[in-house]
């Protein structure tokens, strides 16, 4: 296969970068979730948006 080094670099960087980013998001979310009561860890509803947001 020609250009093998370029192929490994291109595909490798892409997969590693996406993986690292996904892991960091999950890690951050675990840390933040610890500060939110369990019953409020649902995903945002219109009602929540009203409470959180602007007057």
């Amino acid at each position, binding site marked *: 296969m020609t250009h093998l080094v370029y192929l490994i670099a291109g595909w490798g960087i892409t997969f590693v970068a996406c993986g690292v980013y996904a892991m960091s998001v999950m890690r951050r*979310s675990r840390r933040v979730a610890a500060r939110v009561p369990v019953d409020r860890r649902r995903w945002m509803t219109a009602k929540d948006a009203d409470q959180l947001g602007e007057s």
Partner: protein
Amino acid sequence: MSESPTSSKTSRLLGVAVALGAIALVLLAFIAVEPDVRINAETGQEIGQFDAVRLLFVHVPAALIAYLAFTVTTVGSAVVLWKRSVWWDVVAGASAEIGALCAALTLITGSIWGRPIWNTWWEWGDVRLLTTLVLFMLSLGYLAVRRLEGTATERARRSAIVGLLLFLNVVIVNRSVEWWASQTLHQKSTIADATIEGNTLFTLFFAMVVGVGAYVWMMIHRFRLAWLERMSDRFGTDDLLAARRAEADDHARIASAVGGTSPEGESS
């Protein structure tokens, strides 16, 4: 690994599908696709991209998602300014972060592809290259604005204006570099090229589907993280509010205990 608090049934299902899609994509890209080799009709030499063509299956989806993500950011910013929507503020921010990552990957994979094919890491004469680079730098600016001090409302308004300008800026930059760069090396012809085989075309299409799936999956998690952050802020505020009210009650109790006069001692 314990379950992420940003997971749900939908996101897990999508995640598994994207992971399987990625594996299938690797197999398709490295096995099903033939290297791009053509014979020059006049000289009889072998020309083409050879195996480097396989880089396009990460480069093209990354570029597609980058532009898709920033479009979402711009739309979200407009809705924030128009309807003061919190939901769209979170979406715009999440999308810009993923967009910046994909723009960076577009530039990196493009550069890696350009080295063997164009014989240069970077080409100043190319409009899409320059536009994407400036877009990447603009998105870093947008993300910096999102990290500025201030309340959630202040941040939402400020970043919405920058987010709205993001799209406008990209259009202006694209126009200007299009005039500026006298020639373009870019693969305008590649996709339309008749020599692209069925397999290559299918794999490219499949890569875009996997890419969009990955974008949606990442958006779900990133959105939920931002939402958790806001919830955490809010519950923090509730605690502070309770503490603040207790402070007022204490003060009232002391005041009534000393006979209705306020405690001057606390004033200074």
